[in-house]
C-alpha cells in the first residue's frame, strides 16, 4: 500500500500553517533591537558623471545617523560585485568585466544606480533625508537599446568595453550549417524579439546587516534563493569577511523566479554599514525601487533562419542573437544567452546542423540576468515560432511538421549538435496526449462558430524541452562557471526517531518543507510530521548552491537520497547487531529493517534510539549516532519536456486576445507531489502568457528613463486575464541519471507557454496576412495589425 505521505502523494503543505495565518517571517517582518533604516539615493539619470555629494542638509535632518557614499566604500577597500560565469569570445578573449561597485563611485550607469545611502532611526526619516542629499550630476548621453548600443556611434557605457560589446560568442558548426542551407528546398527567416521583463516576485527585496563587535561576527538576513552563494561572493570578493565570520540567512522569501539569486549591492551595503554605524541596518525596497533595480529578464533580439528539405525536414538552423546585459554584469548574466540558450536550439528535433552566434551588450539600463527559464524560454520561443511559420509557409500541418522532425524515443540517449545529450523523452507521446485534451480536431468548427459571433479564433502549439537540474560541476566549470553546482544534505536522526534534514536548497514557494519530508517518510516510514526540513541559514546547513534552474529535487533531493543511503547502510549494521543476524540478511521493507524470511524487524526509530544510547551496539566497529551528510554532483542536466496547446479568441474591434483554452502535457520524470508540480506548471504558464500578451519592460530610448516603472504601466497578469488550465504529466520517461528519476518542473510552464500563445494569435490573424508579431500581443498591436490588412483580406 502506497505511503499516503510518501513519493507521489498530494500531501498538503506544512508551510501553509504559517503563511495562511500571517505568521510567515519575511525579511521586512524582522525587527532587530536598536535597528536603523537605510534608504538609497539613486541616480535619476541613465548615465551621468558623479561630481560632489553634499550631505550637509541631510545630516541635519531628524533621526539621521550617517550618509555614506561610494567614496566611503572605496576608502574601506570594498570590492566589486563579482560575476559568477566567464564567457570567452569567438577569438578566445575573455568577456569584458568592468567593475560593479555596491555604491557607484564616479559614474552612474542606469536610472536607479545607487550613489549614496542614508541611515536613520526610522524609514520615514531616512526617506525624507535622502531627498536632501545633493548630488552633482553631469548628465551624459545614454545607450539604451542593445541594437543601438552596438552601432559604432553609441555612447560608451564602460571605458574598457569598446563598442559596448561584452563578448561575441558562438556555438555549433557554421560550415555544416552553410552546406545544409545550400541544399535547402525552403528557408524560413524570422526576426524575433524576446522582450525585456521584470520578474516581479510579490515580495520586494530586503536586507538586514548586523555586526557583533564582541566576537567580530557579521550576519546578513536577505531575500535570497541561495544564502551560501551570497556568503561566498560577498565575503570573499566584496567585503573581505572570512566565511566562518559571516552568517547569511534567507528566511521566508516571497518568490524569486531567479531575481533573488544574484548578489546585489544592497546586501553588501547593509552588511558593511552595520559595522560602521555599530547598529543593525535594515533596507526594504519599494516596488518602484524593485522595478528599477531587480535584475530584469530576457531582452534578446534575434535573427533566425531554418533550412528545410522538400518534405519539411529540418536541415539546419542558424541564429544570431544580441543579448542585453544592462549596465553591469549581474552574477550569472553571461551564462543565460549562451550555455542556457544556444544549447537548447535543437529543441525536440533532429536538426542535424545548428550554429548560433551571440553578442552580449552593455547598455545604460538595469542589469539583466536569469528569470524563470533563463535562456530556455528564449530558445523555445525562437524555435517554436520558426516551426509554425515554416509550417504555414510550406503548407504542412503544424502538428505534422513536428512529428516529421521529432527525435524518436528510441533514439535516446540523443546527442544534439549543440553540446547537450538528452537522456530520455517521448516527444510524440506528449503531442498525442495534448491534442485530444483541447479537441484539436474540433478546432475548425469552433473557429466557424467564433466567426459567427464576429470573433477570430486561433490555435497554436509549443513543444519544448529544457536543460535543468543544473549542473554537473566539471561541465559547468569547463563552460565558464566560477562555482560548483552540486547540492548538499544532512539527514540527522534524533534519539527518539524524529528527523531533521538540513538542505542546501531553498524554498521560496516550492514547498520543500513538505516534499523533501516525503522522501524521508517514504524511505524510512517516519511519520511525516516527525520530519523537519531546515533551509536558508548558512550557520545550520552544509554548503549548498540554492534553488533555481529546476534543480531542487533533481539535485537537492538526490543529495538527500545519498545521505539516506548512508543512514540505511549504518542502520543495517546496527539492526544486524540488535537482531543478531548477518548484515547481508537485513532487508528494508516499508521503512522497517527485517531479517529476511523472518518476522524479526525493527523500525528506524528503534535503531536511532540504540544509536544514541548504544548499550546493545557494535561499538568496536561503529561510531554511535545516526547523522549522515552527502554532497551530490549531478551527472548530467535533466531534460523535462512537453507540449503546450493554446487556443485564443480575438475580438477584431478591440484587438483583445482571450486565452480560451490551454493544455499542458509534461514529462517531468518521476513526480514526488502532484499538487505541487501542477501548481508550478500553473504559475509558469501564467508567466509565459504574461510575456506573450501583457508584460513589457520599456526604457525611453533617448533618456534611458524606465517608463514601465510600476504596476500602473507594467501589466501583470491578473486572475481575470487567464483561464484555468488542463494539465497532465506522465512518468514513463524517468531521468536515468539521478536516484529519484526526477527531471524538475519549476520552469517548464514559462518555457513553453509564450510560443504556444503567439502561435495561436498568429493563427487567428493569418487571414489578415499577419505572419509575425513581437510580444506582447497587446490589444493595440493586434488591432493595428488588423487595420493594416488589405480590405480584401479583412473582408474574409
Amino acid at each position, binding site marked *: 500500500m502506497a505511503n499516503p505521505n510518501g513519493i507521489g502523494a498530494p500531501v*498538503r*503543505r506544512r*508551510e*501553509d*500553517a*504559517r*503563511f*495562511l*495565518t*500571517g*505568521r*510567515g517571517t*519575511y525579511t*521586512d*517582518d524582522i*525587527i532587530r533591537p536598536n535597528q536603523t533604516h537605510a534608504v538609497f539615493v539613486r541616480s535619476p539619470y541613465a548615465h551621468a558623471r558623479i561630481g560632489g555629494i553634499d550631505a550637509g542638509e541631510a545630516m541635519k535632518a531628524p533621526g539621521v545617523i550617517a550618509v555614506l557614499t561610494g567614496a566611503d566604500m572605496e576608502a574601506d577597500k570594498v570590492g566589486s560585485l563579482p560575476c559568477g560565469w566567464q564567457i570567452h569570445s569567438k577569438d578566445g578573449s575573455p568577456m569584458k568585466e568592468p567593475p560593479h561597485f555596491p555604491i557607484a563611485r564616479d559614474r552612474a550607469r542606469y536610472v536607479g544606480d545607487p550613489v549614496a545611502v542614508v541611515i536613520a532611526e526610522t524609514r*520615514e526619516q531616512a526617506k525624507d533625508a535622502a531627498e536632501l542629499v545633493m548630488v552633482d550630476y553631469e548628465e551624459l548621453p545614454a545607450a539604451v537599446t542593445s541594437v543601438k548600443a552596438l552601432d559604432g556611434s553609441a555612447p560608451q557605457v564602460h571605458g574598457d568595453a569598446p563598442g559596448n560589446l561584452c563578448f561575441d560568442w558562438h556555438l555549433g558548426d557554421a560550415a555544416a550549417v552553410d552546406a545544409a542551407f545550400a541544399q535547402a528546398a525552403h528557408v524560413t527567416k524570422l526576426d524575433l524579439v524576446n522582450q525585456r521583463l521584470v520578474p*516581479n*516576485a*510579490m*515580495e*520586494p527585496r530586503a536586507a538586514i546587516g548586523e555586526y557583533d563587535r564582541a566576537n567580530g561576527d557579521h550576519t546578513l538576513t536577505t531575500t535570497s534563493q541561495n544564502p551560501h552563494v551570497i556568503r561566498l561572493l560577498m565575503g570573499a570578493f566584496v567585503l573581505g569577511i572570512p566565511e566562518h565570520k559571516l552568517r547569511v540567512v534567507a528566511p*521566508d*522569501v*516571497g*518568490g524569486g*523566479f531567479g531575481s533573488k539569486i544574484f548578489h546585489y549591492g544592497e546586501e553588501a551595503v547593509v552588511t558593511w554599514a552595520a559595522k560602521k554605524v555599530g547598529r543593525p541596518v535594515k533596507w526594504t525596497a*519599494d*516596488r*518602484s525601487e524593485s522595478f528599477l533595480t531587480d535584475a530584469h529578464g530576457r531582452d534578446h533580439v534575434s535573427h533566425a533562419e531554418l533550412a528545410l528539405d522538400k518534405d519539411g525536414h529540418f536541415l539546419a538552423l542558424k541564429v544570431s542573437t544580441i543579448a542585453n546585459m544592462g549596465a553591469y554584469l549581474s552574477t550569472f548574466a553571461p551564462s543565460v544567452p549562451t550555455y542556457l540558450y544556444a544549447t537548447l536550439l535543437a529543441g525536440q528535433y533532429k536538426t542535424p546542423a545548428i550554429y548560433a552566434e551571440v553578442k552580449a551588450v552593455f547598455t545604460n539600463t538595469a542589469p539583466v540576468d536569469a528569470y524563470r527559464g533563463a535562456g530556455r524560454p528564449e530558445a523555445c520561443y525562437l524555435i517554436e515560432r520558426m516551426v509554425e511559420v515554416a509550417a504555414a509557409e510550406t503548407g504542412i500541418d503544424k502538428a505534422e511538421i513536428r512529428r516529421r522532425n521529432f527525435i524518436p524515443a528510441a533514439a535516446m540517449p540523443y546527442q544534439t549538435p549543440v553540446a547537450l545529450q538528452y537522456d530520455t523523452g517521448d516527444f510524440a507521446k506528449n503531442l498525442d496526449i495534448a491534442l485530444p485534451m483541447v479537441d484539436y480536431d474540433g478546432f475548425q468548427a469552433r473557429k466557424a462558430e467564433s466567426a459567427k459571433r464576429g470573433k477570430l479564433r486561433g490555435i497554436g502549439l509549443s513543444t519544448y524541452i529544457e536543460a535543468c537540474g543544473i549542473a554537473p560541476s566539471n561541465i559547468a566549470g569547463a563552460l565558464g562557471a566560477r562555482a560548483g553546482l552540486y547540492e548538499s544534505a544532512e539527514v540527522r536522526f534524533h534519539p527518539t526517531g524524529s528527523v531533521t534534514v538540513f538542505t542546501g536548497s531553498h524554498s*521560496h*514557494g*516550492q*514547498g520543500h518543507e513538505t516534499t523533501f519530508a516525503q522522501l524521508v517518510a517514504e524511505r524510512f516510514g517516519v511519520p511525516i510530521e516527525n520530519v523537519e526540513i531546515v533551509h536558508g541559514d548558512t550557520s545550520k546547513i552544509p554548503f549548498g548552491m540554492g534553488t533555481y534552474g529546476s534543480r531542487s529535487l533533481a539535485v537537492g533531493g538526490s543529495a538527500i537520497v545519498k545521505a539516506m543511503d548512508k543512514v540505511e547502510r549504518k542502520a543495517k549494521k546496527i539492526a544486524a547487531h540488535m537482531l543478531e543476524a548477518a548484515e547481508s540478511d537485513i532487508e528494508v521493507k516499508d521503512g522497517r529493517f527485517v531479517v529476511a524470511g523472518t518476522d524479526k524487524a525493527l523500525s528506524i526509530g528503534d535503531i536511532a534510539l540504540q544509536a544514541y544510547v548504544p548499550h546493545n551496539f557494535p561499538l568496536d566497529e561503529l561510531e554511535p549516532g545516526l547523522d549522515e551528510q552527502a554532497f551530490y554532483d549531478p551527472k548530467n542536466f535533466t531534460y523535462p519536456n512537453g507540449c503546450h496547446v493554446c487556443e485564443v479568441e480575438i475580438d477584431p474591434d478591440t484587438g483583445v486576445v482571450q486565452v480560451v483554452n490551454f493544455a499542458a502535457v509534461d514529462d517531468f520524470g518521476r513526480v514526488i507531489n502532484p*499538487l*505541487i508540480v*501542477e*501548481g508550478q*506548471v*500553473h*504559475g*509558469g*504558464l*501564467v*508567466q509565459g502568457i504574461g510575456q506573450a500578451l501583457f508584460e513589457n519592460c520599456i526604457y525611453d530610448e533617448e533618456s534611458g528613463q524606465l517608463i514601465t516603472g*510600476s*504596476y*500602473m504601466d507594467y501589466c*501583470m497578469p*491578473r*486572475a*481575470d486575464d*487567464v483561464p*484555468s*488550465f488542463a494539465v497532465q504529466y506522465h512518468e514513463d520517461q524517468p531521468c536515468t541519471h539521478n536516484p529519484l528519476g526526477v527531471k524538475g518542473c519549476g520552469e517548464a*510552464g514559462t518555457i513553453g507557454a509564450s510560443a504556444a500563445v503567439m502561435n495561436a494569435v498568429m493563427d487567428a490573424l493569418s487571414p489578415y496576412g499577419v505572419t509575425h508579431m513581437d510580444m506582447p500581443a497587446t490589444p493595440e498591436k493586434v488591432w493595428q495589425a488588423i487595420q493594416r490588412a488589405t480590405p480584401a483580406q479583412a473582408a474574409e
Partner: protein
Amino acid sequence: MPCTVSMTVNGKAVSREVEERTLLVTFLRDHLGMTGTHVGCDTSQCGACVVHVDGRSVKSCTMLAAQADGADVTTIEGLAAADGSLHPMQAAFREHHGLQCGFCTPGMVMSAIDLVKDNPNPTEHEIREGLEGNICRCTGYHNIVKAVKAGAEAMQGGSMKAAAE
C-alpha cells in the same frame, strides 16, 4: 505631526501616537508588530495589504491609520479561531494548494472572504473578476480559484470535498 489613533484590531482595543501621514498598513506592521499584512507595491494595485475595516475589504496601503480611527479592523492574524482552527477560507487555500510563497496570501484570503460575503456562490468568472485587485506571481490563480470556490461552499456550511469537484 503626531496624532493619536485608536481602533479595535482583531477584537482588541489599541491606541497609539503616530505621525499623521502613517498608513494603516504601517500602523499594523510597524506600530502593532502585526506583520501578517504585507506591502507588495506602492501604487495600490497588488492587494497584498488587504484587511477588513468595519467588515469591508480595504487596501490598507491606501488608507491612513487616522482614517481607521474608531473602526473595527480584522487582519489575517484574526481569522483563525481562538483554539487555532482555521477559518474555512484559510482551510480551503491549504486543501487546494492556493498558495506557494505565501506573500500575496493574506491579502488574497481577506479579499476572497469579502467577495464571498457579497456573493455567497460565485462562479469561476466572478471569482476571477473579484480578485482582479490581488496579484499573485506564483500560483497562476488556477488553485486560488478552486480554493475560493471551496471556501465559499464551506462558509455556507457545505463540505469542501463537494466544492472541489
